[in-house]
């Protein structure tokens, strides 16, 4: 993907794919999907939903909307990315509204990562995404370094290594109920330190 979604060559490519897709060329639609599904998922949907299944559903709904609007869709000289990102944000909101009926635990952590992004409206190049991801990982580890070691240990076990609840309880040598409280407190401590880490990083980079 080019650095700039409004790159003229990119726009011409998009227009061509849209024209073909309107004529029923599935490969053209698939090409648009392949170009934007990944960034939409990782930069727009997952941060707003915090849940893989919900983000996948919203992604499917977003491209379903494109498919349905294909004949009416007009390329107005800006990348289709912006239209897709807007629809995706609406679909994420729908998922939040449906949370009770679907029973999914949803959590938007968009506000936590917004300072790291150059704007959710930008699909970003692979390089930029890589840099952004690297910055986020570095800040997460810096934040973990600043909290109580026991909190850090439980967060690493549960979220970075993805250990099941029972395995974490065994590793921490506590009962399940105690582990739940430990996780709750550790996440709150992390959350508190995260803001400090972000602020410090922004000062360093500016």
């Amino acid at each position, binding site marked *: 993907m080019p650095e700039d979604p409004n790159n003229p060559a990119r726009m011409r490519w998009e227009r061509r794919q849209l024209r073909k897709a309107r004529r029923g060329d*599935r490969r053209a*639609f*698939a090409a648009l*999907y*392949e170009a934007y*599904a*990944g960034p939409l*998922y*990782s930069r727009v949907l*997952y*941060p707003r939903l*915090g*849940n*893989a*299944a919900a*983000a*996948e559903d919203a*992604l*499917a709904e977003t*491209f*379903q909307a494109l*498919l349905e609007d294909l004949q009416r869709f007009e390329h107005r000289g800006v990348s289709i990315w912006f239209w897709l990102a807007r629809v995706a944000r609406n679909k994420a909101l729908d998922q939040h509204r449906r*949370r*009770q009926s*679907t*029973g*999914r*635990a*949803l*959590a*938007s*952590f968009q*506000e*936590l*990562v917004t300072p790291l992004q150059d704007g959710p409206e930008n699909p970003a190049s692979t390089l930029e995404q890589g840099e952004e991801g690297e910055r*986020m*990982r570095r800040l*997460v580890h810096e934040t973990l370094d600043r909290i*109580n070691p*026991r909190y850090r240990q439980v*967060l690493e076990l*549960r*979220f*970075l*290594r*993805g250990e099941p*609840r029972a395995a974490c309880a065994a590793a921490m040598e506590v009962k*399940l*109920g*105690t582990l*739940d*409280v*430990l*996780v*709750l407190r550790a*996440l*709150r401590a*992390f*959350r508190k330190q*995260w803001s400090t880490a972000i602020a410090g990083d922004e000062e360093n980079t500016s």
Partner: protein
Amino acid sequence: MNEREPDERERREAEALARALEGDGTAEDIPQDTLQAAALLRRTAGEGDLPADRRRAILEQIAPEPADRPARRGRLRWLVPAGTAVVLALVVAVWGFGQLTSRKVAPAPEPVRLPSPALELLASQARAASGSSRDLAFLGESMRSYRRTLYDALAERYPERS
């Protein structure tokens, strides 16, 4: 580190969070701030990237790979025997037309060349016309011989059909 005892509210929140982290979001009092932090940590661990197999599965769900390719092959399968039949029919038609045309334009077969009578036979016929009986016997013999030669030539040119 000595953990202080959680109060009732904190215990409820911890239970709701534990359920939410397992995917159950139906509880009323899920502490969203902690759920957000958990999602951020999971994102760091790579959960927020769409795996290639899931990406393909979603595309397949939205715009299924047209089953029309095999179906089209199935639909067009009749073309093979039909095409063969048409080609064969054309070959037969062209061949038949060629046959007819060739009959029309072929040169007429040459007439059989009948053997010429020998000079003695002609002379004998001339003498018979003048009234000599001895010449008549010779003429009969010469004519039989000539007729055999004539019939042989005809039989060779127009053989009998079996």
